[in-house]
């Protein structure tokens, strides 16, 4: 009798198996490799994509952008719009409503107080919040009731989806971060390294710049998700090893940002364990020109700040010549192949925002030389120019350690030397360069160099926050704990005015015009930012990982809850 029961049970269990497919934690373990190791899990204290992505598994915003750039509600019930009354007719307020019954991973309920607190946390006047641009123009954020949050803007805000939307503005728990406001923010190590969240996973072990272990969040809102019980996010190494580990050896399921030469990637795909997928978004590889002087002889705290303008890069002629000397199509051919397109714009997508300027596409060394000659930069006996004041035109050109970037450096160095600008190259380990540590002299925010190259993008489909990040007050400086995204230290009053105007304009066509103007002001007209390549994101995906959707408009790990194992 007993045996029969057991067997019946076994048969029943076998019959149930397909249904159990959708059970939380049924698919075991998933391995993700990021060759830039996350150093913090608080996106408000770091601008690095790796940190944003690693934290996106744990903390979530009210809504995210999907692979097409469409907004979809996450913690919110719906996306507030003018039509459903969530956005007021005067465009000055947006009212979000949380889903009911949401729990933090520690079991406590998610309330509007947490959302209000998140806003306070980032907008605290003493704290250098890395995502402050998302909160541009916010007057106040208040809780209407336990589940309703009203964000009011100082002026009409045609794109009110800055706060709490997308990977850069997730909701953090008030109880955990209450003591971490303002200047104390970087000191809350436990909270910054292990935020309590609402996402599909929660952190079990965080080793900065190394490995993060996650497990399925027992309080996740969808009881059948995530399919994976545990996740390891391994950081560090290099893009080659990461690509190999997914496409050739199959040790990892997902490898992020495979910035590798096209022939290298194609060769690895022959391994047969995975494939490289690419998608174009707003990611632009660019050269940022330092408008300020990074001379090591200047006192610490004044280097690379507005106090000391750059001796020659502050002249638009020099920057224009440097941009003209670059052969962008060739860079794409060598570094990216199918995964890149030459661009002259900081905003390469969506289509309505593209400026359409293409004069930078053809290299013109002779023209560049002429500009410099006419501007009075005479060549010395060794062919290197100097300014009228006698400053030798020598630039320190830094970037992160990466084979493609080093090739770009070598090429661009040669072109710039042809126009009489001496170039010193420097490469810095990516985890340091993008690490955001205010104590390190080698971060891209500190910018202790004359030009530097990296890639950046905006999340979502609206570039307003991205454009607003280049205003004068967002330059990294000691007072902002070296946070801020105006890396070039651009300071044009008309630009700031146009950004403010953009903030008040509701009509999409007019907005597009403004964005194009802003884009040209910093790129095609002034060359303070020299865009090089519109980069597709290339991700290595194992053939056994299902449900992964490459998203260029939000965090790349945005839908980790839906991943499953292909058996």
């Amino acid at each position, binding site marked *: 009798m007993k045996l029969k029961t057991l067997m019946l049970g076994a048969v029943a269990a076998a019959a149930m198996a397909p249904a159990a497919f959708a059970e939380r934690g049924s698919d075991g373990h998933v391995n993700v490799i990021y060759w830039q190791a996350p150093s913090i899990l608080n996106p408000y204290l770091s601008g690095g994509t790796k940190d944003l992505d690693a934290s996106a598994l744990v903390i979530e915003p009210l809504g995210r952008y999907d692979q097409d750039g469409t907004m979809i509600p996450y913690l919110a019930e719906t996306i507030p719009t003018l039509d459903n009354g969530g956005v007021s007719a005067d465009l000055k307020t947006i009212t979000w409503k949380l889903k009911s019954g949401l729990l933090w991973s520690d079991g406590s309920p998610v309330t509007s107080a947490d959302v209000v607190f998140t806003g306070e946390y980032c907008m605290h006047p003493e704290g250098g919040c890395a995502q402050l641009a998302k909160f541009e123009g916010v007057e106040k954020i208040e809780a209407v009731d336990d589940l309703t949050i009203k964000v009011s803007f100082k002026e009409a805000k045609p794109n009110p989806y800055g706060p709490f939307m997308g990977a850069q503005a997730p909701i953090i728990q008030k109880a955990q971060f209450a003591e971490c406001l303002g200047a104390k923010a970087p000191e809350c190590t436990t909270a910054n390294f292990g935020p309590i969240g609402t996402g599909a996973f929660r952190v079990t072990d965080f080793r900065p710049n190394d490995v993060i272990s996650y497990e399925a969040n027992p309080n996740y809102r969808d009881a059948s998700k995530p399919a994976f019980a545990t996740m390891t996010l391994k950081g560090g190494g290099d893009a080659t090893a990461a690509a190999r580990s997914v496409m050739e050896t199959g040790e990892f399921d997902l490898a992020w940002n495979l910035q590798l030469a096209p022939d290298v990637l194609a060769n690895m795909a022959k391994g047969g364990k995975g494939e490289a997928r690419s998608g174009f978004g707003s990611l632009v590889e660019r050269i940022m020109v330092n408008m300020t002087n990074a001379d090591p002889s200047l006192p610490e705290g004044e280097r690379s700040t507005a106090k000391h303008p750059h001796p020659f890069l502050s002249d638009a002629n020099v920057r224009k010549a440097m941009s003209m000397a670059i052969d962008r199509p060739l860079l794409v051919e*060598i570094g990216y192949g199918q995964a890149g397109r030459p661009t002259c714009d900081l905003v390469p997508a969506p289509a309505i925002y593209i400026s359409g300027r293409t004069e930078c596409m053809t290299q013109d060394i002779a023209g560049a030389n002429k500009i410099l000659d006419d501007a009075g930069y005479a060549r010395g006996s060794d062919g290197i120019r100097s300014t009228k004041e006698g400053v030798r035109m020598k630039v320190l050109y830094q970037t992160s350690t990466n084979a493609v970037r080093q090739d770009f450096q070598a090429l661009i160095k040669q072109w710039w030397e042809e126009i009489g600008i001496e170039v010193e*190259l420097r490469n810095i*380990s990516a985890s340091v360069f993008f690490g955001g540590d205010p104590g390190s002299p080698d971060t891209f925010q500190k910018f202790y160099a004359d030009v530097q190259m990296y890639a950046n993008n905006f999340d979502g489909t609206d570039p307003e926050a991205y454009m607003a990040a280049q205003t004068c007050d967002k330059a990294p400086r000691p007072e902002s704990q070296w946070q801020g995204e105006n890396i070039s230290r651009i300071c044009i009053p008309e630009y700031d005015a146009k950004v403010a105007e953009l903030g008040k304009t509701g009509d999409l066509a007019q907005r597009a015009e403004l964005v194009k103007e802003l884009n040209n002001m910093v790129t095609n007209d002034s060359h303070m930012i020299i865009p090089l390549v519109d980069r597709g994101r290339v991700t290595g995906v194992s053939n056994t990982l299902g449900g992964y959707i490459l998203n260029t408009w939000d965090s790349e790990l945005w839908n980790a809850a839906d991943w499953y194992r292909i058996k």
Partner: protein
Amino acid sequence: MTDASSAPRNQWLDVWLQFKSHKGALVGGIVFALIVLTVFVGPWIWTIDPTHVEIRARNKPPSLSYPFGTDQLGRDMLARMMAGGRVSISVGLTAMALAITLGSSVGLLAGYFKRLDWPLMRLTEVFQSLPLLPLLLVMVTLFREPLAGAFGPEKGTFILIVGAIGVTSWMATARIVRGSVLALKEREFVLAARSIGTSDHKMILRHILPNVVSPIMVSATLGIAAAIITESALSFLGLGFPPDFPTWGRLLYDAVDYMQQYPSRVMWPGIAISLTVLSVNYLGDGLRDALDPRIRGR
């Protein structure tokens, strides 16, 4: 036979005869001399600029115009190998000279002056217990910028790397020299020299130092090999010279991505490093045998 007993034999001739009989050392010496000659004289004959990007000639296999082929940017591999070798070998020789000077001085002083023995040997132990690579990384982070500012990026890095390798690899020499000095100090000829009033200064330079040359020479040759490898390791980690400045370690590092498609690009610098280190090691082996009077002649 009669010659040997009648005319006084030249000591260096004996050394040479002994050295010559060690086939490995002889071959090692010739190979090393050839490598040094190639990398230092070669660029006068093969005048292509190692950093010149020739974009139409990317990834070329070896041919008459590019005997070692070209890299992914069309830079000539032969020119890069020679430029890289010049740096790697210069780093090796200079760092070795620094380490030997430091090590011999510390060893001589510690062995000869009793009151200096304790502090100097404890210092040696402190240095010996420091892990080399992390220490180098810290030094690179701390001093790269000031040195690059003072001497230019290439010279600055050269000084930094030579200095870093030099001050972290003198300890073995110091211990060996101290041991030899301690033994020598009790020998009769030293006693005799002392009894006629030889000063400490003269004693060290005239009587002790020439007798410890053999262990110093051996440490020196081994030190060159170690320094070349350490520089390669630093370049391999991307922490050595600027990225456009070829060294053997950097060439190896750059070629790793292309290992499958263009294996020769990893092999050239790999072979050069191995060959140099191996030949120098054999050379050191032979020198030790040749310079040791007790082995010599057997």
